């Protein structure tokens, strides 16, 4: 009888350590730093079509330290279960000029990005579905800033302009 009690106590202690570790993992993943697998053609040539693993930090967007030129992970406004990786082209209050179809350079439009929103575009303007299609993105949908690529090893390094 006493043996079961000792075993149960030790199992509880181990489970609580694992539980605390998982909580710490969640907090780090959501509020500090996480690694994400990004794929698709919309950010060529910056990111590969077959998939890269990037490090994403979750501090800048909470502190309001994002600016145009940053690579951000955002929740898609068309499907809340999908995450997109695009570049911020304009912040709120900026005027943005864009053309829906890059092959026809004379069809361009301009607008001012409203308060609380940002304008995101993929580096590969031909195949990217971004703010040119669904409009300015509410700032609250931004999840983090991708600053470094760790896989594939041949393109290991910081992600810049």
């Amino acid at each position: 009888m006493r043996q079961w009690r000792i075993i149960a106590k030790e199992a509880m202690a181990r489970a609580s350590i694992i539980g605390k570790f998982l909580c710490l993992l969640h907090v780090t993943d959501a509020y500090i730093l996480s690694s994400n697998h990004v794929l698709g053609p919309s950010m060529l040539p910056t990111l590969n079509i077959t998939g890269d693993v990037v490090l994403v930090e979750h501090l800048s967007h909470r502190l309001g330290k994002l600016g145009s030129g940053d690579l951000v992970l955002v929740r898609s406004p068309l499907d809340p279960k999908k995450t997109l990786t695009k570049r911020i082209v304009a912040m709120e209050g900026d005027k943005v000029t864009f053309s829906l179809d890059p092959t026809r350079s004379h069809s361009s439009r301009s607008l001012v990005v409203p308060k609380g929103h940002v304008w995101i575009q993929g580096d590969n303007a031909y195949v990217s579905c971004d703010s040119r299609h669904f409009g300015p993105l509410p700032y609250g949908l931004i999840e983090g800033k991708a600053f470094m690529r760790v896989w594939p090893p041949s393109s290991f390094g910081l992600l810049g302009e």
Partner: protein
Amino acid sequence: MGTPSILWSITKKCFTVGVITLTVSDLFASIVPVRGASMSPTFNPKTNSLFDSLSDDRVLVEKLCLRNYKFSHGDVIVFSSPNNHKEKHVKRIVGLPGDWVGTIYDVVHIPEGHCWVEGDNSASSLDSRSFGPVPLGLVKGRVTHVLWPPHRVGTVDRKTSQNRVSSSSSASKF
């Protein structure tokens, strides 16, 4: 020799409790106060009772709905404001993606991935009638229960307004 180690163990305990609380409130449920009268009489009804005028309602917000973003008409949700990501609003879902919602001036089609929210107190509510459909990605949780004041503790029911919303799910019955 005794004091630094006591301080260190207290710090460790506070840190652990903080991390666990943050995880539970992010992934399971949290308790938030509701300010303003835009959801009257569901939250903060302005009656003359002592409890109602003393403090704001406290409600239970569940986060399990954020796994697959499946909401129903009449759910009360908490979401970040599209115009200011630091503010959070509590409103009721009136329209889901694909619905047509009637406002005073016209009929709005809710695009994919968005929802139409309105406060129960239409007279003093800043909602989708001002800032348009809200992307579902901004939703931070669903309100299930009122926890304070004690005499109004209970579940928050779904209330639908069939006469103003034409949804694709109801049209398919005909």
